[in-house]
């Protein structure tokens, strides 16, 4: 093995320029793949986190059917005790109860239809990031009674400030007239147009009173501490809610993908097009390798003929060709990863942007400046595929050795 390795290594440098050009193709593709995959992984996780943490959460417990067509009447009984019992029994997750309704919100001069959300202020601040994004005034507190926080755009449209009054007009759970007068205590700015334009939040007890809900609510939102633990947590909640919390019907326990199916699909769509691009890069590198190794086999026809006539098996020569390819691909991988990681590491600190990125990323709850995330997987994935692709491409030249005939081969110039 030692001798073969030496032989393979020396053979590589018989045409140093050709070897370097082939290695260069690998290095180029590897740098690109390390950067792009790290960038992609970083973006996807950020996209998921930002989208979910704002309001949706990781898991929601609702009445079956509510998610598809949310109606005020599709409630869960004893929503606060349900949230409380979840907090007590499920490890590694935070819970908060919500109720949601619709009302016409009016200031002195304007009226807009809005989505009203009743929240438990202190636990809401743990499960969602919106409470932290109040830019004027403050977020709700548990002892607030007639307070409300509203979005930036809505505040502008209604022409109101913190301290002003807001009148709500809608219909309650039982079809009765629902009306309330609240004081704006804070204005949030979250970068998502629909939320800023359409949503207001008020304390849950007041909401239940205003909309005649009694002790009912619409969902319990959960945020898990470890993203990977979501399926297990969903199972745990399903077991708990099925076996007993004196509810007659089983509850719907929805994970983030059921709550926001578009998110995963958008990522899948983006992945599909990215993998198409990566695939093309790998194929182009593979062609480069096939070309180089075929040349190197063809120009050594005479040499191989001599060795074959000395009694060496063709299989050994095929192995030699593969070993050469592996060395070349290994070199491309090492240099590619080194440069790729160096480049990406710099960008993870400085971040980067390009014209138009900010406008586009807003649509996906992403910042205008991107920071790729290096991880062992994001580093090794692309280069490993290039390595395998190179070996695969070298099979044809390597197997060609088998149809050499010693005498004819020696006659070749």
């Amino acid at each position, binding site marked *: 093995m030692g001798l073969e390795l030496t032989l393979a290594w020396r053979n590589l440098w018989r045409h140093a320029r050709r070897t370097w050009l082939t290695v260069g193709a690998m290095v*180029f593709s590897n740098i690109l793949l390390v950067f792009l995959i790290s960038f992609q992984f970083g973006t996807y996780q950020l996209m998921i986190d930002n989208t979910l943490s704002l309001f949706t959460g990781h898991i929601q417990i609702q009445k079956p059917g509510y998610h598809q067509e949310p109606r005020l009447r599709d409630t869960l009984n004893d929503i606060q005790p349900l949230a409380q019992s979840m907090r007590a029994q499920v490890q590694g997750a935070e819970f908060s109860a919500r109720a949601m309704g619709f009302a016409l919100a009016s200031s002195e001069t304007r009226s807009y239809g809005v989505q009203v959300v009743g929240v438990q202020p202190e636990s809401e601040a743990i499960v969602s990031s919106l409470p932290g994004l109040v830019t004027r005034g403050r977020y709700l507190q548990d002892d607030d009674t007639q307070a409300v926080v509203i979005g930036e755009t809505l505040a502008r449209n209604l022409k109101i400030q913190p301290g002003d009054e807001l009148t709500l007009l809608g219909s309650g759970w039982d079809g009765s007239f629902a009306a309330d007068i609240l004081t704006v205590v804070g204005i949030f700015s979250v970068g998502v147009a629909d939320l800023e334009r359409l949503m207001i939040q008020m304390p849950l007890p007041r909401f239940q009173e205003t909309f005649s809900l009694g002790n009912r609510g619409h969902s319990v939102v959960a945020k898990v501490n470890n993203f990977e633990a979501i399926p297990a947590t969903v199972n745990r909640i399903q077991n708990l809610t099925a076996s007993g919390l004196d509810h007659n019907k089983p509850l719907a326990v929805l994970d983030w993908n059921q709550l926001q199916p578009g998110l995963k699909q958008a990522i899948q769509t983006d992945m599909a097009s990215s993998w198409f691009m990566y695939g093309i890069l790998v194929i182009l590198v593979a062609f480069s390798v096939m070309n180089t190794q075929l040349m190197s086999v063809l120009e050594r026809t005479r040499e191989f003929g001599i060795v074959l006539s000395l009694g060496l098996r063709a299989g050994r020569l095929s192995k030699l060709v593969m070993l050469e390819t592996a060395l070349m691909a290994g070199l491309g991988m090492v240099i590619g990863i080194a440069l790729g990681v160096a480049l990406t590491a710099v960008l993870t600190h400085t971040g980067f942007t390009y014209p138009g990125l900010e406008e586009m990323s807003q649509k996906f709850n992403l910042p205008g400046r991107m920071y790729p995330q290096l991880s062992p997987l994001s580093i090794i994935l692309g280069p490993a595929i290039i390595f395998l692709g190179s070996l695969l491409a070298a099979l044809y030249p390597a197997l060609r050795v088998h149809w050499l005939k010693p005498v004819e081969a020696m006659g070749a110039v």
Partner: protein
Amino acid sequence: MNVAATSHTWGIVWRLAWRNLWRNYRRTLIMLSAIAIGSWAMIVMISFMRGMVDDMINNSVQHFLGHVQIHNPHYRDDPSIVNRMPPLPDQARQFLDQPPWRWSQRIRVPAVISSERESLGVELMGIVPEGEMTLSSLPKQISSGHFLNSADSDGIVIGARLARRLQTELGKRVVIMSQDPDNNIADRGFPIVGIYTASMESLEERYAFIGLHTAQRLLNVGNSLSEVEIQGPDFRHVDNLYETLQQLLPGRDVAPWYRLDTYLGTMLGVMDGFVLVWIVVIFLALSFGLVNTLVMAVYERVREIGLIMALGMRPAAIMQQILLETLLLLLLGLLLGNLLVLLTVIPLHDGIELTSVAEGMEMFGATPRLYPVLYAKDWCLANGLVIVLGLLAGLLPAYRASRYDPVRALSKH
């Protein structure tokens, strides 16, 4: 002098380049495949991306974005009935009544829609049916009932999802509630005369249509309007229209689509950037193999080049020969690549159905059907860039070949 002395050598240069190309046909075929796959991937990827962006834009254009919109200068910031405008002056009407322009006028305000069971927020569109039919797609997608038959119609048309959420149906009554300019609640009951469907579910609960004159009476605004929308033949060429209208309508807010929806406007620019980057990346991945092939092709016929030079062919003609060989390789590869493009794009002419990721596509703002769209400028850019950059890559091997010393080249091996 150079030209005079070398123009008649073209014939022999051609013959040498062509025959040398096929001397090592395996290598040439591998390289041709690489160029073909590379250029195929370039153009197909670009055409699908273009198709998606075009689809996003056309889709939005037909969902009340239009090519150019006219508003009261304050309306876009505060889309209330307070910020209304008088009808267009005659001069502007006369201009817009000529082909190729299509236009219509609207009342467009936020409102609350209520059934006996539920209340929700909608955008109330007071429209002129004949004009709206020429601009927008929703009025044509009626699943039950019919669209409004006049601007004075007493009925309302809503989306299928909204009807489900309101738990109402065709023929039943709903109540529309909005504010008039004095912030008084304006409400009125409407029978549902039609239900529309949309390719994106979210659109089905967003808009409710009533007649323009009915809306003007409801809101007590005389003949005032919220919005005028104009469409021309092509969303790419709206600047003339936009500038003309700006001159005709001083004191009004005239805005082209790309300023009304900055996400879409940016997408168009980002696509141009992506096209260029993608072409260059693929080319670079190809270039290593290309240079390698050319270097090898020159290397293995050093003696022959020495001989040709000794016989009196000028260095410039040697360079021509290598560059011509490069050009032939590129052109043949591109020819194959473009054939593959046709074979891909023509069968997919009707688009690919992506229903499994429909909600993800919706997040991007696209419909679940993906069409390839091949722009002439992209096609020229891809092919042109490959040829120009490919010849540049061939320049170094060609130059080196032309600088050989014939004595040394002849004594090689």
